[in-house]
């Protein structure tokens, strides 16, 4: 009997891992669709290298740092590793999208390595893993099933640090402080990417339950996937309603961002809610996205893909939501959630800021003005993404 649960949980972890890997093309397509044509290949290359470098770093060092040792009783240790590995790149993905169209590649690659092998593993160790700080006042009791804070906020804080250092794209804000919209170049790619992410999320959250091989855990997994999906649905609907109310337009990019915001928000506790609460949690997630996108623009934090609004803001909201809707007065409390949010915020932001500043001294993070105008594709990849289509560089 034990053998079969071992088999089923291994199979399930592999299934979940495969779904998460769909998020690699998911992020790549989403971001390639959101940037201008002249930066598309650079963004695709960055996404590919992030997956490669971050996963490799996690194999060589990160996993041991996070979990102390390789090993798993309940499933194949290789499957357990693969599932965790599938998460790593996401943290850096979240960040790389937000600084695209102006960041140099080499320093970002360096940061990817540091993030994947040190910063993120430390966060995982702290919250999910070996817990090196157990017993100290920094021990965290935060509940964060699949990483609203561990993945999404961590990536978001690193992005905020990077944007503060690197600045906004040339032409995004006029001298007199007006915002110039820089539209997405390929909406079908954006949509495809968003849905690949959505599907990947079923593996992300469902797999985080850790086992499916008993009646209870099968129910927990199914509930988790149901609630994950519901939060995404609610996010899309609410974002659509707000856009329609304000502009009479059903802006598809905002609707998809709303859905992704809902998905981030549910990620901390999809197994804890009843089947209706995710409507509220995802819906509020979408409200936050719709408010945050223009807010960041107003304070001239230039984030071409909306990653801060989706991942940082909703990473925080999702972690809080667990404290609000699922506190049990014992292991899960609003205060415990808050403490976790703040502790990780400080660590992720400060560590990223310092590391990026140091890298900036040796390898400037910002590309030259000329490269930025010509587009990073030529500089970085040496090619054009759509060479046969006449296009107007802006």
């Amino acid at each position: 009997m034990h053998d079969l649960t071992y088999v089923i949980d291994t199979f399930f972890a592999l299934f979940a891992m495969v779904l998460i890997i769909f998020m690699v093309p998911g992020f790549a397509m989403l971001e390639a669709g959101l940037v201008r044509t002249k930066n598309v290949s650079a963004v695709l290359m960055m996404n590919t290298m992030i997956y490669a470098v971050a996963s490799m770093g996690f194999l060589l060092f990160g996993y041991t740092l996070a979990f102390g040792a390789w090993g798993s009783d309940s499933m194949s240790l290789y499957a357990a590793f693969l599932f965790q590995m599938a998460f790593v790149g996401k943290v850096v993905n979240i960040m790389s999208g937000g600084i695209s169209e102006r960041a140099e590649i080499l320093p970002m690659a360096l940061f990817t390595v540091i993030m994947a092998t040190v910063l993120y593993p430390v966060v995982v160790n702290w919250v999910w893993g070996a817990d090196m700080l157990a017993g100290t006042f920094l021990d965290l009791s935060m509940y964060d099933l699949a990483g609203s804070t561990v993945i999404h906020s961590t990536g978001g804080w690193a992005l905020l640090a990077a944007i503060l250092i690197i600045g906004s794209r040339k032409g995004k804000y006029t001298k007199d402080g007006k915002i110039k919209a820089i539209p997405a170049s390929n909406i079908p790619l954006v949509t495809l990417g968003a849905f690949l992410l959505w599907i990947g999320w079923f593996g992300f959250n469902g797999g985080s339950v850790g086992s499916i091989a008993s009646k209870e855990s099968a129910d927990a997994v199914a509930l988790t996937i149901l609630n994950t999906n519901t939060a995404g649905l609610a996010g899309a609907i609410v974002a659509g309603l707000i856009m329609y109310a304000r502009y009479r337009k059903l802006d598809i990019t905002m609707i998809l961002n709303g859905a992704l915001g809902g998905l981030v928000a549910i990620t901390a506790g999809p197994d804890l809610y009843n089947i209706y609460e995710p409507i509220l949690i995802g819906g509020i997630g979408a409200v936050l996205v719709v408010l945050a996108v223009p807010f960041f623009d107003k304070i001239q934090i230039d984030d071409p893909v909306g990653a801060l609004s989706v991942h940082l803001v909703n990473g925080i909201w999702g972690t809080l939501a667990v404290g609000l809707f699922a506190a049990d007065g014992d292991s899960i409390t609003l205060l415990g959630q808050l403490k976790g949010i703040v502790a990780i915020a400080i660590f992720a932001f400060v560590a990223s800021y310092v590391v990026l500043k140091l890298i900036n001294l040796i390898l400037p993070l910002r590309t030259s003005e000329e490269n930025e105008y010509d587009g990073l594709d030529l500089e970085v990849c040496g090619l054009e993404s759509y060479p046969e289509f006449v296009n107007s560089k802006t």
Partner: protein
Amino acid sequence: MKKIEAVIKPFKLEDVKEALVEAGISGMTVSEVKGYGRQQGHTELYRGAEYVVDFLPKIKIDLVVNDDQVDEIIKLITDNAKTGKIGDGKIFVTNVEKAVRIRTGETDSEAV
């Protein structure tokens, strides 16, 4: 010979072409251009930020004809491209000193 350059609304191209062909014109060259003019561009919205697209898509027709055909052609284009609304476009006429058909080397009015 004269070159007639007409900038028109894209959805009128089909009508204008048909009319020209019926009138016996045997060739023309068309390109996609963007026009700035009295016709105001539309406002687009991108993730909550509105912005004005002030260059509108237009079609430019280049047509080289004999001098005596100019007025007729202008009338034809005007009639078929007109909607009466701002942005219908313009016609400009310039002088062509020489024309050559590449295939045969024929020149001037035999070339068009």
